[in-house]
Structure formats: structure tokens, C-alpha cells
């Protein structure tokens, strides 16, 4: 097995016991990035020098038998809306210019203290506004399973980087599904924790009452280990909660007696039949392992999206006011006076989707409309929370799709923003209610594209959803992009064994195959294509 095919926890073990050197692991990750990222574009920034320095430091700590976390030396990536001191942060926007944060986000500090090897910053939808990573000002990221398709969003770069073995794990952020949906599209695991679990200090805010940072990795086990590291009570985040952790140690094989709910109102038209089949097959597995599964009506499903977009856009319009061309970031070249500086800088710096959401957000908060829109949405939010509270009276865990379909093709989604918003139907209400949600790969659709199943728990009950996901994944182990690999030129998935001529990508091994031989091990070479 190649170094980048190991799970984060397994790689951590091998690094700790000296089987694999930290520098060796780093070089393996950088090699994958070098070979594949020209095509995939999962990364915006790769800081090789800093990573090399960190690798040397951690190797020394291992040598001196210092007590280290299970993630020491493991190569990781961070979504580019999370600040790291001294490393350019863009939020995939021109608006931040060459902004270099003067401080590091708490979640990343926690990772650094645990000895994780940060490679760089991943691509995303601009300011986390989008569901495909196509609103990035620096170009989209491609899905490693089919490079003519999107990786999902807004944490598309993080999910594609993990899926293609460019890093062992990554951090994403989730406001309306931005970890769970791209995890589903890219065939990896991702978890959005209970609101307040991971400090938002250093996360560039989109919807402050909804945002959470969370891990993306190959396995549920990895996600649990990473969540333990990044979670903390932080006085610098006034919404940070004091709570229990111990997620990794709570993993067990036993879900006998676990009561699982299946919301009937999620399984209606609009849900792709292949996704539905995969979810129901997964539910069958859970039943076989001793869980009881019962259908129920969640309620208010169709109102989650209007409530979400009203609230998120309102909060975003306020949060993004700080980008004004004054203290940092992009400043227009020509302006007459202060107000023009503001307007021109913002209008030139922000992309179309961001401007759309800021306009709507400003409008729904404005005098005369505030009650009808914003307050109304907050009342609907309260009703949605109550519906979830009622569900968790009866159930330990609720199971749902992460998205209505597998990954769409590049260029299909932006023409109709409303349609793109509707793809968030299974994820947004989880953010509105502050609940934890875990996405685990559970199968493929008719085109061979990954489908994820979502485990949703009550507030602070990550352990239940992690356990359910862990048990499920034992029966349905993680599968990298093997055999069927992607070919950018045709977008067609090649059947196993036939290989892809001329260079193509294979997430699992990242090795370049000479022209004509086809991709057996598989690899991708951005420059050929």
C-alpha cells in the first residue's frame, strides 16, 4: 500500500513506530500534489518550506520519545477560509488580495500542537458561498472520481485533496452542508460537529450562528481522532461550548438496540433513485447489525431552505461588511472619496454569488422588511429545531442522504442558483438546529460516482453518530479511486482493467504511467491533458 493510501490513524501509527519517516510521508503527499493538482486544483497554496521545517521538528520529537498525539507527522490540508499565521488566506476571493493572517485559528493551533503536518490551503467556493467549488475566484476544483464533475462545495478542495490522496486528512467548514455534501460527492467521510464544539476563532465568518469547522478524512475513525484534537473550549469564541469530548475512545462495534429514524419526507421525488437505493441498502446493513429502524415524518422540510438562505445571507451581509478595502485585502485603484472606495473595492473584489447573497441579506435585514423576512425565518428556525427535538425523543440517530444526487458536471449548476440551493435540502436544517452530522460513503450511482449517507444526531451526541458510521463502515470499507479512473478529456469512467491512455488520474496511487500503457496503477498528469 502506498503511504497516501493509509488512513490518518494508520499513518500516524507507522510514523510513531518509525516504519515511515515524517519527511517520507511529506514527500509522498507533495509528490501526489505535484502529479495531480495541476488538473484537480484542490490546493490554492502549498507551503513546502514550512512543511519541511515542521517535518524535521516532529521527527526530532519522535526521536526524543516525546509524548505525541496519534496525528503527529500526518500530512493535512486546511480550507482557505481558516487562518494560519504567515500563510496567505484568500477565501477563494480576490477581495482578500494577498492577505496574510497575523494569527492562527484555534482549530489549526490545536492541530499544530498535536504535530500535524500542514501542507497548505485548499480551494473552496468564494467565502464559502456555493455548493460546487465553482464560485472560487481561482477556478474550480475537479472531482477525482470524474474530473469533468464538481467535487461539491464549499469544502470541495479539502474533500478532493483527501479523496485523491494529496493529504491524509483536511479541515473543512460547514454552514449549510459544506463538509457533508462534498464528502458525499468525493467518496470520503466528513463531520460537522454540534455548534460550539470547534472554536470559530480564525474561521472567516459566513453565517456565524451556523458555521462550524470539521474534519474530512477517509474513515469515521480518522474523523473521530481529528475531532478530538480540534475541539476545545475557547474563550476567544463567545459561542464556544464547554462539553465532553473523547470521540475516538468511544468508538465501538455495537449498535444493538440503537433506534434509527428514517424521515419519510426526505425520500420524495427529487431524490435520485440510485441515491435512494444506496441509502436503503445501508439502512439494511444497520438493521443487520442490530439497530432498529423506523420511518417517521420530520416536518417542515421544504421550509428549511428558505429559512437557511434568509438567515445565512443576512448574517453574511453583516459579516462581509468588514471587507472594505481599508485595513487589508483588495483596494480599488481609482476612486473619489471614501464611499466610492468602499463600493468600488467591494464590487470589484467580490464575485457574483457573493454579491447576490450580500444584496439579499442586506435587504431582508432592512427596515420595513426585517420582520417579514429575517424574524420570520428565525421563527421557522425555532419550529425546525422543535421538529428535530421531537425526532430525538424517539430516536438515537436519524439517517438521511447527504445530497439528492451524485456529483453534477462542471458548469451545470451556476446557471440556476435556485436549483443549486435546493441541493442543500438534506443538510441545511442540521445547521439551523445546531446538530452534528456525519457523511460516510455508502455506494455508487449508475455512473460509478460516490454517494454518501448522512448520520444526524442530537446536540452533543457525536458519539452515537460516530458509532453508527463506524459500524457501517466496517461492513462497507473505504474505497479509493481504483480501476475506474478519470480522464479529463472524455469525462468517461473507464471500466476496471482497461486503463486510461495518455495519462489520467488515479487517486489511489498517484503514479504516472507512460503513454500507451494505460493506467494500471493509474496516475494523472495535469500537463499532458
Amino acid at each position, binding site marked *: 500500500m502506498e503511504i497516501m493510501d493509509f488512513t490518518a490513524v494508520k499513518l500516524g501509527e507507522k510514523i510513531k513506530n518509525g516504519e515511515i519517516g515524517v519527511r517520507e510521508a511529506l514527500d509522498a503527499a507533495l509528490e501526489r500534489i505535484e502529479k495531480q493538482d495541476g488538473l484537480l486544483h484542490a490546493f490554492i497554496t502549498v507551503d513546502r518550506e514550512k512543511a519541511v521545517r515542521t517535518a524535521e521538528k516532529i521527527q526530532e520529537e519522535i526521536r526524543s520519545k516525546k509524548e505525541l498525539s496519534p496525528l503527529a507527522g500526518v500530512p493535512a490540508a486546511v480550507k482557505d477560509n481558516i487562518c494560519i499565521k504567515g500563510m496567505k488566506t484568500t477565501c477563494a476571493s480576490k477581495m482578500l488580495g494577498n492577505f496574510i493572517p497575523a494569527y492562527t485559528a484555534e482549530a489549526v493551533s490545536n492541530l499544530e500542537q498535536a504535530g500535524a503536518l500542514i501542507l497548505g490551503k485548499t480551494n473552496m467556493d468564494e467565502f464559502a458561498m456555493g455548493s460546487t467549488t465553482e464560485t472560487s475566484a481561482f477556478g474550480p476544483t475537479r472531482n477525482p472520481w470524474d474530473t469533468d464533475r464538481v467535487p461539491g462545495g464549499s469544502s470541495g478542495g479539502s474533500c478532493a485533496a483527501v479523496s485523491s490522496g494529496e493529504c491524509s486528512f483536511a479541515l473543512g467548514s460547514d454552514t449549510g452542508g459544506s463538509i457533508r455534501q462534498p464528502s458525499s460527492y468525493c467518496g470520503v467521510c466528513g463531520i460537522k460537529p454540534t455548534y460550539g464544539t470547534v472554536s470559530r476563532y480564525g474561521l472567516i465568518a459566513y453565517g456565524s450562528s451556523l458555521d462550524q469547522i470539521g474534519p474530512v478524512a477517509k474513515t469515521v475513525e480518522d474523523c473521530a481522532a481529528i475531532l478530538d484534537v480540534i475541539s476545545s473550549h475557547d474563550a476567544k469564541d463567545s459561542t464556544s461550548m464547554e462539553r465532553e469530548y473523547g470521540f475516538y475512545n468511544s468508538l465501538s462495534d455495537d449498535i444493538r438496540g440503537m433506534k434509527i429514524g428514517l424521515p419519510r419526507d426526505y425520500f420524495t421525488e427529487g431524490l435520485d433513485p440510485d441515491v435512494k437505493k444506496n441509502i436503503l441498502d445501508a439502512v439494511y446493513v444497520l438493521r443487520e447489525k442490530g439497530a432498529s429502524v423506523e420511518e417517521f415524518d420530520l416536518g417542515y422540510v421544504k421550509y428549511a431552505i428558505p429559512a437557511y438562505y434568509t438567515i445565512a445571507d443576512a448574517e453574511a451581509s453583516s459579516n462581509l461588511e468588514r471587507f472594505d478595502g481599508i485595513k487589508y485585502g483588495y483596494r480599488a485603484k481609482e476612486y473619489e472619496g471614501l464611499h466610492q472606495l468602499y463600493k468600488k473595492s467591494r*464590487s470589484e473584489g467580490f464575485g457574483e454569488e457573493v454579491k447576490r447573497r450580500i444584496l*439579499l441579506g442586506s435587504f431582508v435585514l432592512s427596515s420595513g422588511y426585517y420582520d417579514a423576512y429575517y424574524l420570520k425565518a428565525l421563527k421557522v428556525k425555532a419550529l425546525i429545531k422543535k421538529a428535530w427535538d421531537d425526532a430525538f425523543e424517539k430516536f438515537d440517530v436519524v439517517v438521511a442522504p447527504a445530497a439528492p444526487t451524485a456529483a453534477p458536471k462542471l458548469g451545470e449548476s451556476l446557471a440556476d442558483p435556485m436549483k443549486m440551493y435546493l441541493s442543500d435540502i438534506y443538510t441545511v436544517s442540521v445547521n439551523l438546529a445546531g446538530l452534528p452530522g456525519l457523511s460516510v460513503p455508502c455506494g455508487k450511482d449508475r455512473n460509478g460516482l460516490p454517494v454518501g449517507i448522512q448520520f444526524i444526531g442530537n446536540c452533543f451526541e457525536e458519539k452515537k453518530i460516530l458509532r453508527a458510521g463506524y459500524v457501517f463502515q466496517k461492513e462497507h470499507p473505504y474505497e479509493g479511486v481504483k480501476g475506474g479512473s478519470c480522464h479529463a478529456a472524455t469525462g468517461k469512467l473507464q471500466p476496471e482493467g482497461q486503463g486510461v491512455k495518455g495519462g489520467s488520474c488515479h487517486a489511489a496511487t498517484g503514479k504516472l504511467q507512460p503513454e500507451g500503457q494505460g493506467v494500471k496503477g493509474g496516475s494523472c498528469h495535469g500537463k499532458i491533458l
Partner: protein
Amino acid sequence: MGKNTISDETIDYAGILAKLELSPEEKEKAKKDMEQMLDYIDEMNELDTSGVIPMVHVFRTNNVFREDIVTNHDAHGDMLGNAPEEKDHFWKVPRTFTE
């Protein structure tokens, strides 16, 4: 066809609030986008929310206070390094007060 119609006045007003300057084409598109989104948001009016308390935060939140002591003096250089225009260790900005 939706029920909401956004006038030029309204989109200009939203633009002032958002501190955004839209070209005529952008304005037309923004009007249509906003009409479409408001039509969709209006669906929330199907719900009877009388007596429901608006929920901003899921959990009780309290103000978190600390002593007003500067702890990051040494970050000044890093922060100033991001200034679009700088003069004598200050951020340079257009005049804020006119006659």
C-alpha cells in the same frame, strides 16, 4: 411568474446598504435573482408562526468578557503588512470628513 417585483429603487437601496455598485446589466440580473429568491422565501408565510419566539442561537449565549489588556502588541507589524496603503506606521485612507 412570481409575485415579487423588485423596482430599480429597491435594488439601488439594497446596493447602498450592501455598499455595492452594480452596472446596469448587473442591476437587471440582480433584480431578477432577488425576485426569484423572495418568491421562494415567501413560502415561509405558509407557516403559522404566531406565538413562536424567534431563535437566533440554538443554545443560550452569554457575553464573554475579558480585561481590556492588549496581549498582541507584537502583531502590529504583521497587521500593518496587510495595509493596502501605509504611511508612518498608520493605515492610509481617504479623508473621512469633508467640508
